[in-house]
């Protein structure tokens, strides 16, 4: 349907105070390049504030933004918190990102980059605030690989002007403290705040498949009888494993009662549940991508011990293996799990996700059990 997005204009440095005027000018001058004959539609579903800690991250984010606005046209405010060589303390660039959407139409989004020298970082929120388009939802995508609350006042101010905060817990260096601080911030952020973790979105195919494979219609009684869960994950994927466990526990009514870190990069939790106790283990592999590799769920069935294993296969397919049962034939595509694709899918979801919040709350209890 669409051609690849491309920056239609070379980003022009402009005075920070003149950004709005430059945006207006953007739409009134002839468009250069091969698309110049096509009518241009300026499209905007949201304000999207993207915060990056440095130039390298911002450069990577720019490429992702081009993908995002193809499916979710937005006014993008890319804020760079610690720019390198800065001729002035705040610097702004304005550009448009356009793509052709069939029938000779060009759809364009506005892209404003504001880079701040360390000393000027605290002025970023106020600068961004003046550039938001009214009557449109505002989302903050916090890209640094640390928990958003660690951004302190800067994060607080940016989050306050956004209806929707998106972050990614994949890669957090200290998931235990990260989960505790994040869950604390979410709990205090008020009931209307929409908070999305991209790592949680990456779990959707796992959740869907686990939900289907253990459905009472297929496995009567399984959900009430689970007593063992084992997860293997790659480096930096512990928050994801954590969330998956939090989700299972929240949905099935398990309460964490203890946790133990074992040598060999293994964490074990014990949960209380209505029928008995559940033992959960998360085991980190030494190498590989930051993904969940395998999840085994065991229970005592009517005719003995049963175990269903979900494992990540080639080409991103997740397969179910349930020895002796039909479910072994089931697979599911993980789909496009790049950050850009996940942010794109998350942006239109302007509603709270109580299942995520519940999972996060249990994750927090799991973390607290660990540091107790």
């Amino acid at each position: 349907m669409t051609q690849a997005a491309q920056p239609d204009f070379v980003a022009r440095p402009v005075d920070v105070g003149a950004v709005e005027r430059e945006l207006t000018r953007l739409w009134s001058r002839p468009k250069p390049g091969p698309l110049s004959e096509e009518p241009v539609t300026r499209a905007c579903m949201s304000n999207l504030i993207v915060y990056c800690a440095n130039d390298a991250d911002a450069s990577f984010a720019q490429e992702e933004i081009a993908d995002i606005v193809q499916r979710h046209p937005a006014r993008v405010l890319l804020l760079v918190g610690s720019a390198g060589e800065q001729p002035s303390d705040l610097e702004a660039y304005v550009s448009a990102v356009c793509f052709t959407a069939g029938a000779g139409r060009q759809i364009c989004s506005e892209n404003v980059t504001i880079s701040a020298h360390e000393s000027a970082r605290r002025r970023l929120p106020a600068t961004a605030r003046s550039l938001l388009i009214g009557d449109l939802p505002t989302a903050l995508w916090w890209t640094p690989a640390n928990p958003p609350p660690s951004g302190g006042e800067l994060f607080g101010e940016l989050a306050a002007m956004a209806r929707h905060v998106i972050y990614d817990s994949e890669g957090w260096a200290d998931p235990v403290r990260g989960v505790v601080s994040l869950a604390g911030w979410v709990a205090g952020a008020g009931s209307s705040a929409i908070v999305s973790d991209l790592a949680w979105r990456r779990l959707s195919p796992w959740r869907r498949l686990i939900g289907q494979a253990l459905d009472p219609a297929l496995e009567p009684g399984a959900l009430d009888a689970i007593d063992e869960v084992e997860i293997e994950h790659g480096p930096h994927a512990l928050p994801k494993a954590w969330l998956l466990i939090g989700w299972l526990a929240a949905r099935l009514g398990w309460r964490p009662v203890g946790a133990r870190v074992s040598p060999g990069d293994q964490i074990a939790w014990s949960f209380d549940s209505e029928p008995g106790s559940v033992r959960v283990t998360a085991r980190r592999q030494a190498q590989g991508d930051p993904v969940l590799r395998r999840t085994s769920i065991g229970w005592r069935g009517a005719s003995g011990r049963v175990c269903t294993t979900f494992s990540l296969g080639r080409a991103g397919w997740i397969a179910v293996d349930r020895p002796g049962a039909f479910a072994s034939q089931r697979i599911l595509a993980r789909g496009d799990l790049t950050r850009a694709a996940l942010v794109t899918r998350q942006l239109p979801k302007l509603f709270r996700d109580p299942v995520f919040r519940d999972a996060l709350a249990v994750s927090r209890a799991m973390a607290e059990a660990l540091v107790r």
Partner: protein
Amino acid sequence: MLETTSHNPLTAGLSHTLLPEPCSIVIFGGAGDLSRRKLVPALYNLMLDGLLPAGIAIVGFARTDLDDARFRQLARAGIEKHSRRPLEEPAWSAFEKRLFFVRGPFGEASSYADLAKRLEAIEPGCGVPGNRIFYLSVPPSAMGTCVEGLRGAGLVRAGAARPFSRIIVEKPIGRDLASAQALNDGLAASFREDQIFRIDHYLGKETVQNLLVMRFANAIFEPLWNHKYVDHVQITVAEEEGVGTRAGYYEEAGALRDMVQNHILQILCLTAMEPPWTLSADVVRDHKLEVLSCLRSISGSDALRSVVRAQYGSGVHRGVEVPGYRREPNVRPDSVTETYVAIEAYIDNWRWAGVPFFLRTGKRMPRRASEIAVQFKGVPPILFNADAASPLEANVLALRIQPDEGISLRVATKLPGPKVRIFPVKMDFRYGTTFGEQSPEAYERLLLDVMAGDATLFMRRDAVEASWRWVTNILEAWEDAATRWLPEYSAGTWGPLEAEKLIQSPLRNWRTP
């Protein structure tokens, strides 16, 4: 649209909360066009999205000489050509294992015995606990035979019993009120109403579903949605194609039966219905039925005044000369089958008293377009609208169903400059450019609904018969008319002059959708 209650807490919050149950889907006419172009690709896409239940078997059933392997080849070709997403080998490899074929003529009891035997053999291995959906992609004349065959072979389970039996039937449901009733009686002899899913793929389209959202999730429209503010409503379903290879069917049907009785009246219902208090299937369908019950009957001489029928003559389509309807293959040279119909209809209730609904459908129109356009009343003739000779154009809210699904609103604005000059501009919202996401095909949504047992988007017997009752009056008036002459319109135009006269007034014209 609806969320079903589940006893599986692990499915809470997942993007599609409809819970399709493990089942076999038996496609009667499984080797046919609909199956290859729409049904199998729809099921494949549902699997890609992880929406098919874990236990599923898809069984093609037809007299065509195929086996499992050849049916799978056919299905693969259908997906490669018609799926909205490309065929991926790992997915196909999992999908094809669920495809089976049973060969047999629909008129022979042994075919159904074979089908029953095959289902019994397949289902345990596919994780299907005996739930069955029978999709009758067959001509109406074969429906009764198929239903009797199913019942005779013990393939129909009564009512709400588990495992369930459900049946999907395609339009046309009959060709007039009497035949629709007979067909429904035939279905009712074997299936309870809540087991019957009468499909109208229009109702699975995003924009049609969005009608209710737009009306009842926005505070600004509903207060204006009545006779006080609405001047008239136009519903257009225009086809670009001629009769093509469907002459055999179309000669017996015509535009009124083919389009108005189902698609257009269903859209009319969603446009005009009162707010339902819940989105449960029966409440929504009760409210739609109310609209049909309030449709003013058009019979006798009214039918000649309020309805225009016509037939396309030769003309130019996309720069190419095309023949008139009567010169199409398999069409009688003296055919009086209408390929175009325009109707001025009224809904006699409090909300819509006196508001005309102009309904229009035709073949060989300049382009394919379906839309609902609500034209509001003009502003008072003072200030900017004081010149009676050139009144301001009224506001129009148009909902495009296809192509380019979206919504537009025509509003008056001031042209830049020192003088006050008014110009109508269009505020345009398109699904394709706003959301970027690809909408699922209508059949994906509808098949999922049947698997989940949600009948909201399907036609209930009483509504089908109410719409046939209204349409049959017109058909009978045409039968009784002294003349059988039909106006002609050139292929590639928006219809005959008579249709212009039907709507024309200083502020009313057919829109160019």
